[in-house]
């Protein structure tokens, strides 16, 4: 019995703090990214910074999709709410420049939280799951895009808004590429490690349980709707954080930051990295970005075709991502060999 006790005890601590390969990869990734500025020029650095923020955006989607198995097509809405929240508060209201970035950030994240809570409440508490959830959130993005284009007095319509100041806090402005790069990296690192830490613990197990069998999880005493709703809202808030920071770098906001194409792209980034791995979302974003640079430099029209075909393949052949697809095939192959023995 004591043997079993120690086994159980080992298992128990392991579940919270287990050093999974993904955690190691995340640490490595952040370490590498923190020395990248030493070897890069300012222009490249601004690109890498955008990739980091898109990586944060992808991470936000993976927190919900990867763990609950429910695909949201609405995440561009939350990225866009962050972006527009930041833009509108820093342009329209003449807020004191020393804290306008903080106000913008809070407005953007707050808007996303409210919209996610409202929409999430109605659909998750209404029992909408799976493909229906995907379709409703897809509609949400279309509606949000129409509002961004139509409500031009506030949003600047088709052309968007220009003149968003660089992110600043306590009088320090992150206007130079190096500073804004490290801001993005630090925010990403905090979010990534928090997500890994929380989702490797009990909450991660419970979310996996809900994904496997929600009715069963309920009969074990879990308020599954509330747990899903909170996860959705937190995920939306992270997406809006990425959007709000992103526009303080570009200096402008436009309707394509709250559009279906962006929702589709973020799904692809996560899928390429393998959904559910968290760090994979960031790596997937970087891979797709790099591919886009390469392919677009050969032919401008090739990229939309490549990404479009990839998306179709994704849906048809490997809905859980190419990585998982290969792993499954390998496992199935091993099993069939064992079976033949």
């Amino acid at each position, binding site marked *: *019995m004591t043997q079993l006790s120690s086994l*159980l005890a080992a298992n128990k601590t392991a*579940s919270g703090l287990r050093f999974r390969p993904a955690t190691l990869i995340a640490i490595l990734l952040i370490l590498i990214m923190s020395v990248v500025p030493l070897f890069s020029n300012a222009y490249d650095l601004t690109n890498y910074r955008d990739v980091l923020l898109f990586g944060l955006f992808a991470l936000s989607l993976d927190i919900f999709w990867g763990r609950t198995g429910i695909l949201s097509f609405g995440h561009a809405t939350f990225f866009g709410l962050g972006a527009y929240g930041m833009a509108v508060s820093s342009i329209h209201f003449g807020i004191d420049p020393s804290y306008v970035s903080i106000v913008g950030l809070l407005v953007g994240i707050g808007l996303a939280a409210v919209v996610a809570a409202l929409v999430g409440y109605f659909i998750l508490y209404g029992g909408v799951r799976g493909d229906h959830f995907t379709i409703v959130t897809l509609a949400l993005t279309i509606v949000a895009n129409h509002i961004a284009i139509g409500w031009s007095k506030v949003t600047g319509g088709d052309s968007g808004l220009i003149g968003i100041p660089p992110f600043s806090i306590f009088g320090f402005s992150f206007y130079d590429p190096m500073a804004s790069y490290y801001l993005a990296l630090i925010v990403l690192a905090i979010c990534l490690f928090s997500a890994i830490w929380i989702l490797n613990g009990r909450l991660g197990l419970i979310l996996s349980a809900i994904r496997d069998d929600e009715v069963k999880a309920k009969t*074990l*005493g879990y308020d599954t709707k509330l747990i899903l709703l909170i996860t959705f809202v937190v995920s939306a808030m992270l997406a809006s954080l990425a959007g709000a920071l992103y526009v303080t770098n570009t200096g402008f906001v436009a309707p394509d930051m709250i559009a279906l194409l962006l929702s589709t792209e973020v799904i692809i980034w996560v899928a390429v990295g393998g959904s559910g791995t968290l760090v994979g979302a960031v790596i997937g974003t970087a891979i797709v970005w790099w591919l886009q640079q390469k392919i677009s430099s050969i032919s401008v029209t090739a990229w939309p075709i490549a990404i479009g075909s990839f998306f179709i393949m994704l849906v048809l052949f490997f809905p859980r991502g190419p990585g998982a697809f290969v792993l499954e095939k390998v496992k199935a192959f091993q099993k069939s060999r064992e079976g033949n023995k």
Partner: protein
Amino acid sequence: MTSNIPILTLNNVSRTFGTFKAVTDVSETFGPDELNCIIGPNGAGKSTLLNMICGTLPVSSGSISFGETAIHGLSGDKIARLGIARKFQVPSVFESLTVFENFQVSAPANSDLAILEEILSTVNLVEDLDVTASDLPHGKKQWLEIGMALTMQPKVLLLDEPTAGLSADETSATAKFLRGLVGKVTVVVIEHDMAFVRELGARTIVLHHGEVIASGPFSEIENNEFVRDVYLGRR
């Protein structure tokens, strides 16, 4: 004294699906820490009845109380937290999690390891701690689900066909195990296997077309003409 107050009371509980009556006017009481059995032919409404007790399905009419608390209309998770655990007819375990992770999900957050340990050996899964549930054979899934229910330290344990797919030896081990729970927890078990029900020797309720047609000690039920007719398909 306390043992006279039922822990679970069903009052005219009914459930319809459209115009179809799956369960009609069931009124039964279950005493604390007693073993009870529900039998009846396919489609009699046994699973539907359990679904209503644990809140997976709302009642169409009637009331269900747990002690003094009315629980019909509460959501499934609230009912579970009151102390009602349930094993489904089709083994419902979390397929992508390991045996131990399944236990971690089912057990309260700061459960005593010694208790989990005891339950793991009760359900014979010590060796399979790190096996992914989807890789378990059917019988072990049944046991895993029963084990998960036990980790909740429930006051009422609802088991829907716990021996389906088990061998004769395993079935009789299950009967022995369930008899061992008498005096510890109220158990309501649905079964088809008459040999098993005989071995349980518990109070037995017979459902037919959604209605209770007999209830009492199994020895009485066994000799009831009407019940025999139902089981032999004469009615």
